[in-house]
């Protein structure tokens, strides 16, 4: 009885006013409250701090008390060599990462899909997820040992080629290669899960019919498997694209050193450095620049995908 009463109240709530609506739903609102307050406190209150990107922030004067300078911080930012270098490096690293780490999990999922022994498949999957659960502090500890001049990778390399060992942590190209390689390695297994779940949803009948028609496994993959994966691929691509200015702070911060700053100094390390030297306004401006581009990218790519696919695809 109560339920019916509540439903009718909800339907006519506009007429009875918002206060009685609150009163009616006090318990559910109270459940929401702690989460909502934390959400606002840690995600929306800081937005107010963005103001200092347009001010000459002096901690003593506070955010409101500091002087307005308009876009001056941004023009300073773009005039400095440092920032442009970081911007270039960020794009460089993240685009190479995107090209390498986007297709890799798809290929892995397709390979795992061909494996008929479930036990074997399971073991490979279990191992391939492991790096995903380690922090980059831990991973960098392991990577610096493996890639060091006297480490096992160089040992195999010198034994096979007879050349001098590779100095991964001092050569720009080698360093970027290592960054990209280890990033792909870390995310590969975990990234394949979403494709595997999409693969398991494909109707077996399609394959049976194709086999009867004489299609080879390769043809089945191209004609059945891949088309079924397209929605997942597009969704993951949008998510990846929105992160194009995230070159991987955790990874780079834990692996780089002054000899490779030239190629590995990125926007996030720039922001951190300026912040640590108390240039809060410049650091905020650089961070805001990054946030805005990310936002525009994800909204735009989602819009385009929705347009192209008649609202079938997209992340919201």
């Amino acid at each position, binding site marked *: 009885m*109560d*339920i019916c009463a*509540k439903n009718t109240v909800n339907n006519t709530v506009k007429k009875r006013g918002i206060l009685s*609506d609150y009163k009616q*739903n006090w*318990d*559910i609102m*109270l*459940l*929401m409250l*702690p*989460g*909502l307050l*934390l*959400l606002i*406190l*840690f*995600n929306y*209150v*800081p*937005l107010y*701090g*963005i103001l200092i990107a347009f001010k000459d922030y002096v901690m003593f004067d506070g955010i409101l008390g500091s002087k307005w300078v308009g876009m001056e911080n941004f023009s300073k930012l773009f005039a400095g060599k440092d920032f442009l270098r970081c911007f270039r490096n960020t794009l460089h690293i993240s685009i190479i990462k995107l090209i390498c780490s986007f297709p890799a999990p798809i290929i892995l999922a397709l*390979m795992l899909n061909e494996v008929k022994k479930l036990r074997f498949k399971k073991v*490979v999957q*279990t*191992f*391939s*997820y*492991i790096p995903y*659960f*380690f*922090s980059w*502090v*831990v991973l960098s*500890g*392991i990577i*610096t*040992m*493996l890639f060091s001049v*006297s*480490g*096992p990778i160089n*040992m195999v390399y010198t034994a096979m080629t007879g050349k001098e060992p590779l*100095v991964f*942590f001092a050569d720009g190209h080698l360093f970027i290669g290592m960054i990209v390689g280890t990033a792909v*390695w870390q995310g590969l297994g975990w990234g394949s899960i*979403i494709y595997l779940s999409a693969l398991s949803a494909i109707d077996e009948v399609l394959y049976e019919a194709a086999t009867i028609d004489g299609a080879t496994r390769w043809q089945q993959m191209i004609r059945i498997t891949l088309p079924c994966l397209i929605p*997942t691929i597009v969704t993951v691509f949008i998510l990846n694209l929105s992160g194009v200015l995230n070159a991987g702070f*955790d990874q780079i911060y*834990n692996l780089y050193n002054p000899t490779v700053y030239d190629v590995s100094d990125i926007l996030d390390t720039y*922001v951190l450095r300026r*912040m640590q030297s108390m240039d*809060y306004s410049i*650091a*905020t401006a650089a961070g805001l620049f990054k*946030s805005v581009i*990310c*936002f525009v990218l994800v909204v735009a790519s989602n819009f385009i995908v929705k347009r192209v696919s008649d609202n079938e695809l997209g992340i*919201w």
Partner: protein
Amino acid sequence: MKSTEIKQMLTDFLIHLFLILLAATTVYPLLYTLAISLSSAAEAAIPGLHLYPKEISWSAYKMVLSNQEIYIGYMNTIIRTVAGTFISVIISSMFAYALSKKYLPHRRLVSFLLVFTMLFSGGTVPSYLLIKNLNLIDNRWVYILPLIISAYNVIIIRSFFESLPDSLGESAKIDGANEFIILFKIILPISKAVLATVALWVAVAHWNSWFDAMLYINDNNKQVVQILLQRIITFNNSELVKSGQVSKNMMEYNSETIKSATIIFTVLPILAVYPFVQKYFVKGVMLGAVKG
């Protein structure tokens, strides 16, 4: 007919070979680290594949375990992981439950506020200034409070709650139960799988977190183990880079064994529970694939 069969077998063989190699790339680094950590300084100094230690030496572990700072860091990490996960799961599920009810006032607005946080953030400096103004610098709550609500986790729990039949809470409501009783007595007990998934993710995030500790904590008594590990590693690296080439200095190799022991010590809890909880981790990704 024959040639296609051979082709088939060859493809299968190559796929299996590749997958074995892939699995090896994740197992070998761990084995190497474990072997170095159990080696004597002299043995660790010999370049090699180090699949296993020739003679087991516990000296590196003794050094690590007797280090007061690492011990304190480890305790702090455990505390933040346990407390942070517990609080986060409770508040997230309350939030998610409220959002799953169509009659929640301002439901659309609150949902929008939640999703928007995934798209835009103020950046590092505004967050830092907020933490400073809240007097959370050098306060252990800084580990817990900002991580309680994550849009992604709330959305996962909410989609699970939305998939439950409405009839579950209705009879209780007729008996006069309020939403608190329905959530904690009826809904949460049947949501263990999704809660376990989210709890594990939050726990891993807490265990691996280091950036917040680096920015907000200066007091060594409140530091986490990841930062201590980072200090050990960066110390080693700067030595490596300065010399350009690795010197054959015993001390340095000695610290290599300590570094390895600290790494093993840090990842041990994750590795210990990982085989048993793997399916929960994976389940969450499928749930997350549902549109936000």
